[in-house]
């Protein structure tokens, strides 16, 4: 459990994946590789890649971010609060 990255899904992404979160075992993965990995598992995510931002531990991630163990990575589709 201590060498796992958790990925969170919200809004319609949660319906696409059928889950609110997925645990991924990895030593460290770049944002683009994480997307590839997720799209391989849930191909329907591809259509939502554009417009969806990644956040790491509650902070929007840069395009060249590397995510590691124990990180909580969230897929943030376009928001609509307020």
């Amino acid at each position, binding site marked *: 459990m201590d060498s796992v990255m958790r990925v969170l899904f*919200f*809004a319609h992404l949660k319906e696409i994946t059928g889950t609110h979160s997925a645990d991924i075992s990895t030593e460290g993965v770049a944002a683009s590789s994480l997307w590839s990995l997720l799209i391989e598992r849930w191909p329907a995510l591809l259509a939502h890649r554009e417009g969806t931002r990644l956040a790491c531990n509650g902070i929007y991630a840069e395009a060249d971010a590397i995510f590691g163990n124990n990180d909580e990575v969230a897929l*943030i*589709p376009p928001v*609509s*609060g307020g």
Partner: protein
Amino acid sequence: MKVDIKMTRAPLSSRGVSVADGRCGALVEFAGVVRKEEGERIIEGLDYEAYEPMARLEMGKILQSLAGEFPCASVEVQHRVGLVPAGEASVIVRVESKHRAEAFGLLAAFMDRLKADVPIWKSVP
């Protein structure tokens, strides 16, 4: 700038604007309210989902980043999650400041940023 951020499943409460700290000359309360009409449809309400820890963090960061341009005495944000019936507030922002310009400026800029960056999503249930 005093900042208070609350996310709750309960109906939001407004304190009204009749009395303020004597150092503040301006007090604004804004409510975003769920409309009965969503496009052509009549709806009972909207369901709000949030990535709460990040939503709080992001709202705090947005307010801190606006405090330089719009120095206010205090800002309170309440955002409701879960089902919000039509006619009820999904968000209430209360701002106190010395002069009205910074309160209006902060409020408008905060709402723009909230709707662009804070991880909250609404859907028709």
